[in-house]
């Protein structure tokens, strides 16, 4: 790429945390309400979110545009890297390689997942009230469930390890000790957020979300692809 790559790279790094990281945590918590509060809890969370003012602009500037830029530029960054964990099998080098691999997985998953959910709402195939049942239909299929589990763990790793890299890229954690401590904290975040997402996936599989599924089946299940 010609021209100065410093600013786009800085923007990529910033967007990964603000707003994408914040949205990601919000998403984990909303979904977790399906585990904690069941169908009612999840509906409350979804309604709460969709009562936010200027929701169109919020979605546009907090989610769509940032993820488009971070995702596409991220693919370009990944393309520019060699993976040399064979020759240098150090923990941090593995994290470097996984940051890129999980970025690519996240990219593909986000397209599929948004197609499954937000686009189906936009097309009128489902509504926010039925979205929990809609998820139930998807994740009760073993292949879809497996893909969701893999993709969710990949995305959470990408976020947590990205947070560690962000702190280095902006010069917040400088010395080896600071970087070690932040690495431990970020791996803690990885475990916690993974558990939140996995519990919500299991919650969506439960019968509670199946109730209205029969009605939803009328427009056919959304399958992989």
């Amino acid at each position, binding site marked *: 790429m010609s021209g100065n790559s*410093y600013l786009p790279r800085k923007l990529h790094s910033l967007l990964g945390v603000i707003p994408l990281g914040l949205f990601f945590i919000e998403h984990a918590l909303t979904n977790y309400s399906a585990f904690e509060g069941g169908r009612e809890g999840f509906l409350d969370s979804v309604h709460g979110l969709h009562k936010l003012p200027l929701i169109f602009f919020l979605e546009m500037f907090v989610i769509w545009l940032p993820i488009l830029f971070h995702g596409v530029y991220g693919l370009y960054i990944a393309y*520019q890297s060699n993976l040399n964990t064979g*020759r240098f099998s150090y923990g941090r080098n593995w994290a470097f*390689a996984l940051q890129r691999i999980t970025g690519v997985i996240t990219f593909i998953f986000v397209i599929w997942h948004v197609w499954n959910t937000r686009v189906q709402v936009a097309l009128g195939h489902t509504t926010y009230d039925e979205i929990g049942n809609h998820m139930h239909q998807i994740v009760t299929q073993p292949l879809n469930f497996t893909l969701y589990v893999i993709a969710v763990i990949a995305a959470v790793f990408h976020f947590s390890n990205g947070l560690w*890299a962000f702190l280095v890229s902006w*010069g917040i954690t*400088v010395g080896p000790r600071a970087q070690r401590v932040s690495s431990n904290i970020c791996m803690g975040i990885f475990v916690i957020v993974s558990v939140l997402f996995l519990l919500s996936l299991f919650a969506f599989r439960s019968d509670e979300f199946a109730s209205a599924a029969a009605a939803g089946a009328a427009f056919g299940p959304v399958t992989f692809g």
Partner: protein
Amino acid sequence: MAETATKQRTVKFIITRRERPDAAPYTEEFEVPYRPNMNVISALMEIQRNPVKADGGKTAPVCWESNCLEEVCGACSMVINGKPRQACSALVDKLEQPIRLEPMSTFPVVRDLVINRERMFQALKKVKAWIPIDGTYDLGPGPRMAESKRQWAYELSKCMTCGVCLEACPNVNDRSTFIGPAPISQVRLFNAHPTGEMNAHERLEALMDDGGIEGCGNSQNCVRSCPKGIPLTTSIAAINRDTTKQLFKKWLSM
């Protein structure tokens, strides 16, 4: 008679060679008579004296570069058993056999194990890794450096532009313009100097240009590979901090 008793112990080498920069690489095997305490350079000298392959066929002597023979010039860097390092400090007794030698192919290969490290010296020019003191009259003594600072700055000054950190870095390749870890650490060194500090912003700006510090992806292979134990990742993070400050300073003063 006592043939088995006198049969020389040998060291086996597998060397990646190429005749010209654009020629295809190939490997050749050598068996070099063992001598106590020999290093990879002395083995290469032996091959130079007697350029015969393990299978008995004659070949052209293997080319390599070396100068100081005490790990301070960086000229003899090559990939030994998969890791980039200096051949002069690679003791045969401490290496697994067969010993595999390859050029550091992140750099243009000139011939056999000889590479062109020009990009490292260009990088030092780009980031102005020097202290400008020339003038038309004697400026007198500059400010002194605090001893506590001098101690860590001295560690950074040990860099011999050997190129090992660039070879180890997954982001230094021909799809990326990343300048590499060593020159970033040199910016930290020269910006730490009380006189060098007066031009600190120029060095930072050089790293905020295409191919600058943003090319780092934190694989941290560099710090694990540097033969001089230079805290490269600390330098990179410190310069990340300084370039971030420089960015905001520039915006706010516009």
